[in-house]
């Protein structure tokens, strides 16, 4: 069913639209193309896409405004497609409810993987308290974490950090967001806390802590829990 999902692409560059059309259609997705924000809003309301790929630099309006307006009623995944050197924009977009981001130029394989991940998450949004990810089993209700069926000893901060990441699996969480959720409002600039705890957590849950597969760094932006 996933492969028949409708994808709305809002991008002003014809060549990118064409490329995405070919790439995504080849994978069986139904593709709707919009070249500006106004058109995109209309298409989103008309076709009820399962996912939206949104360019931040649109000619008629700021992609950020489109995102905010979309998020008033559209709760399915939004992936941001933006040019490089706009870390701040990406962080703002993620804080405004985008699920993921990709910078141009991008590899289409990467985009397809992100789309699959985002759709899977949005698909399994049930309240299952037990989450399985690779060798890791996380029981959110009982606050327990097993790795290869072995109970891990986590501090309470480590557990809140891990459960926050796991609950948002596949989604990029910004530093600020994580710090605010786990430590509270006064701590949202204390990135060094986050680095220390992520390093500790990686040592406990990753097979190879220096090459993490679960707690993945999104450089300069935040973290994502992989699958």
């Amino acid at each position, binding site marked *: 069913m996933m492969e028949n999902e409708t994808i709305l692409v809002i991008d002003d560059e014809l060549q990118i639209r064409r490329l995405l059309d070919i790439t995504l259609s080849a994978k069986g997705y139904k593709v709707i193309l919009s070249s500006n924000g106004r058109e995109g809003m209309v298409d989103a309301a008309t076709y009820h896409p399962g996912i939206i790929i949104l360019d931040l630099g649109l000619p008629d309006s700021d992609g950020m405004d489109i995102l905010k307006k979309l998020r008033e009623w559209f709760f399915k995944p939004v992936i941001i497609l933006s040019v490089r050197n706009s870390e701040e924009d990406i962080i703002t977009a993620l804080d405004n409810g985008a699920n993921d981001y990709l910078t141009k130029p991008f590899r289409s394989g990467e985009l397809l993987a992100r789309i699959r991940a985002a759709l899977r998450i949005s698909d399994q949004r049930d309240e299952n308290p037990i989450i399985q990810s690779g060798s890791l089993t996380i029981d959110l209700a009982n606050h327990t974490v097993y790795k290869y069926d072995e109970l891990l000893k986590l501090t309470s901060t480590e557990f809140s950090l891990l459960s926050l990441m796991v609950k948002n699996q596949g989604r990029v969480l910004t*530093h600020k967001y994580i710090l605010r959720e786990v430590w509270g409002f006064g701590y949202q600039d204390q990135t*060094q806390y986050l680095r220390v705890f992520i390093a500790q957590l990686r040592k406990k849950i990753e097979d190879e802590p220096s090459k993490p597969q679960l707690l993945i760094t999104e450089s*300069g932006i935040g973290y994502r829990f992989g699958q």
Partner: protein
Amino acid sequence: MTWFGEKAEFMFNSEWKQYLLALFMVGITALVCLPFVNDQGYHIVSLILFLVVSVQATFLGVGPVFLAASVSSLVWNYFFIPPSLTFHIEKAEDILMFGMFFIIAALNGILTTRVRRQEKLAHEKEQRTHNLFVLTKELSGAGNVDEILGIAIHEIQANFHTESIFILQDGNNSLNTFGRLRKDIKLSKPEHQVAEWAFLQGRLAGAYTDSFPECNYTYFPLPGARISPGVVALKLANPFSDEQKKLWETYLVLISNALEREFLAEAAQKARFLAESDRLYKTLFNSISHEFRIPVATIMGASDTLISGEHSEKITQALYAEIFSASLRLNRLIENLLNMARLESGRLSVRLDWYDIHDLINKVTGDLMDELKNHNLTIDMNEDLPPARFDFGLMEQVLYNLLINAVQYSPPATQIILGSRFENRTMIIQIKDRGPGFPEEQLQNVFQKFFRLKGQNTGGLGLGLSIVKGFVEAHQGNISVRNRRNGGACFTVAIPSENPDISNLTIEEE
């Protein structure tokens, strides 16, 4: 007397005062002498009066002294030469005496005042020469236009007791954008138009001149041998005297020469700068057109082949791979050009935050996975390195460029070592390869823009390492390169980084 004007009235008065003083002194002397003189002593009186006139010559003008000489000779004749109280002289020797008294007193007085005036002129001349010397000396020491103007305005104030405004041309022989005017002074628009007129015509204008005499200021164009630097405006209380005019002309020439010297120096510097940027422009465009064409040609050729016909699976795959690698190369070129532009613009902002060095290295080695697959990459670092403070994006570029450099310059299957450690609150990152290294004499040029080793053809604009250096220095860090003992190059990046403050973190029980 009002029609003479205030100044003239004052001058007249002081002249009158001198004449009155001269008469008064002669009168007093005669009165004092009168009671003591009998007929026999009247020769002494002539000597006393003569003395008075001589004394007067040392401080009064020619006119008053001449008057004193005439009056005293008449007084002597009338009151003292017998018969007294008449102008009649009996003895022939007294007539001679009277005549000689008058001539000697007058001559003596006039000669003394003339000597005095010449002395005064000589002194003034000396003072002027000194002032000019001071001006010349100071102007030659001035390093820029502002300093010259500062000195000129000060010296004009000191020697001509007048405010001066310099309006300099803008480099295009025009004052129309208000030139380079001192910020604290504003000329009214009509005044400025007169200044512009004076500049364009090269003629005097403004107050006390034939052109626009209704102005508040007098405008003197600054004479220049090749370019006129502009106009100077003086607020004069009186028109210049001939002496002042001569002095002022010398001032104008000296100041103007100094300004012109600076203007020409600026123009020469500008020309040099233009030539330099022209050279850079050419280099950049030559290499850009070359560097861009190769990947574009690859993409065009390979995709054209793919479109035009059926090929075996193997060939098709190879062509796809070529297109992909050419696009990566294009992307790298663009990235480097953009980074260079960021550095050159001077607006590079460094956003420091705490990062895990492992994350940095994983990101870069992940991005370069394809490029690195033919080399043996060894990561040499402690698992437990503390977080360090840097700009992730910039350091990513640093590492990326250094690694791609190592890959491009060293033969396949050789080892590339990427190491990191902390030393004295400094994060050290080292990249060692087994390529040819650098000729010793070239080591200091490695980080220069457009530096490329002769005979190497690995592609690239020669910008990579200069960007690395720029980004490292933006972190207040430094980068060095040396040749390794058994061949290859070793780049060392040092970034200052405090240990993170995590003292507020509560220690938790597991």
